[in-house]
């Protein structure tokens, strides 16, 4: 399958000479349609810079970024706003809804920016917000919405123009764990059902299990590219090379979050009836 978004040998350098800072160094990344990628890493590792470049908000110092075959590093400044409107949906840590507009108007506005007429924008916004269970909150100002509702409005806003890629910056940071998990499940559902690529930058370890891939960014580069596995006992998502234990049985390799889970798994194997 062709990647929807490709980042090839991208670097970003701020300043020059003694004040030069290499925020991102020679990073490459390809996103498949419907894929959820989680980018983690310590503060100052370059996550924000990476996300900004992926979303055509920041030009890389080197390398190319292609979306649907178009190299966005070659586009003029005046072409970037339309590219962002049509290809990217943004979700922010602080929700970033416009405080003077209602939930419905926040979503409608982005459709109108892309050229939709008022009636069409309203119809589409109502449809998405209703899908997200917000039909009773359409005319509420953001200040009257809960954190989870605000983030769902923000997701609706990100989806209104049917972008190929959704970029989420710490989407669960201001939500409690239950709501945060629901939001992430919603994002995963959108990715799988609508075949949109989702890139999430987060510190939240709890959302690892919804990602198809977890990338660890440190000192401006991906240090490990860990494929995820699910613990067959407790169901927890874990990185294969960071698993506490593993086991090969009948040609298949299993990864566990703890030795206890592996012991339980082994006990289960012993008590299983022997094949005839």
């Amino acid at each position: 399958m062709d990647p929807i978004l490709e980042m090839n040998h991208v670097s970003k350098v701020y300043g020059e000479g003694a004040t030069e800072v290499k925020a991102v160094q020679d990073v490459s990344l390809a996103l498949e349609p419907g894929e959820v990628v989680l980018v983690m890493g310590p503060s100052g590792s370059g996550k924000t810079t990476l996300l900004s470049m992926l979303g055509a908000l920041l030009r890389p110092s080197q390398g190319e970024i292609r979306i649907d075959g178009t190299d966005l590093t070659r586009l003029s400044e005046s072409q970037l706003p339309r590219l962002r409107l049509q290809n990217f949906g943004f979700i922010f840590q602080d929700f970033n809804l416009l405080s003077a507009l209602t939930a419905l108007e926040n979503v409608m506005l982005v459709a109108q920016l892309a050229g939709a007429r008022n009636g069409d924008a309203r119809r589409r916004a109502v449809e998405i917000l209703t899908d997200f269970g917000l039909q009773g909150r359409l005319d509420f100002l953001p200040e009257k919405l809960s954190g989870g509702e605000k983030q769902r409005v923000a997701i609706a806003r990100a989806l209104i123009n049917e972008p190929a890629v959704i970029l989420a910056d710490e989407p669960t940071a201001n939500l409690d764990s239950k709501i945060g998990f629901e939001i992430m499940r919603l994002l995963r559902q959108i990715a799988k059902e609508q075949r949109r690529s989702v890139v999430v930058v987060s510190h939240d370890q709890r959302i690892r299990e919804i990602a198809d891939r977890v990338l660890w960014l440190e000192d401006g580069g991906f240090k490990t590219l860990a494929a995820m596995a699910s613990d067959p006992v407790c169901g927890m998502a874990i990185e294969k090379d960071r698993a506490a234990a593993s086991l090969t049985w009948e040609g298949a390799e299993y990864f566990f979050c703890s030795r206890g889970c592996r012991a339980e798994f082994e006990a289960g194997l012993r008590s299983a009836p022997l094949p005839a």
Partner: protein
Amino acid sequence: MIRLAWRNLTQNPARLLISLGGVSVALVLMLTLDAIFTGMEQRVTAFIDRSGADIFVSQQDVRNMHMASSSLARGQQARVKSVAGVASVTPILYVTNPILAGKDRSLAYIIGVPSDAKAGGPWEIESGREDPGAGGVVLDVGVAAKAGIGLGGEVEILGDTFEVVGLSHGTASMAGSVAFISLDDFADLRQDSDTVSFLLVETAPGEAPEQVAAGIEARVRDVTAMTRQEFARQERKVVRDMSTDILAIMNIVGFLIGLAVMALTVYTGTLSRRAEYGVLKALGARNGKLAATVVWQAVISVSLGFLIALILTSLLTVATPLASASLRLVIGLPSVAKVVVTSLVIAGVASLLPIWQMARLDPATVFRRR
């Protein structure tokens, strides 16, 4: 973007009120001043407009009454009368001079009219008689009230005492009032019976005043003859020329106050939403769209401010004559058009700095932690 502009404005009622208050005060200043001068222009030509004359004949090249002097030989009256199309000729004497009533002193156009005047006398009598007669004066009712005198009261004009025999309406303005005395009394005061100031001509029915005026100038030497309308226009022009500088200064003051208030409120309003504009920019809004939002905010503010100013000034036009008979405010269309244009200029100029700042706003700031 209009909806966003409107919501941004109305979300903070206190800021909106300050903005509207400041702008409307500035615009009221401009509208009221214009209304005062328009009213004054109309009142200042009240005598000419209501004189009943179709043509004003004056000394050659004298084209108005205010701050002007005209002298015609009495003999000119007969020569003018002989011109085709002339129905009647009324000589009047005129001077601008103070009227003293007790301790009260007010400037007036003193008009000397003959007792059989076909034109040039008071046009609306409140009480008393129309013909001042010997030793009498017809005074503006407002001036008389201010001086605390009525019919039978005495005033001093050009050094002589006159008895108030009539009170007239619509004969006062900020520039002064009109007082009527007899032509003979006026001539005695001047110690000159051989000259008059103007000849007021009534044209015969069906005659065009322009043609008759041209005929007078062709047939009578050393005079200028103008239709009533042209004479009034010249009179207004003189008053306007005298007040242009004051009007210009006050208009500039009003403009600057409005601009300062609007610029401050648009700037602070935009600054407080800097993060939101950054989000819009990140989402894909072009600079033009964001600029349009700012301009709409300013335009909506000044439009509301203008409406408030128009209502306030209209109320003043009703209330002012109740407080002062000599003051009349008239809101003219040119004045409204001027203030509308000024309002739009204020909105445009006030938007420049916020637009410039938004154009420089980096959309990538949305991902930076606050």
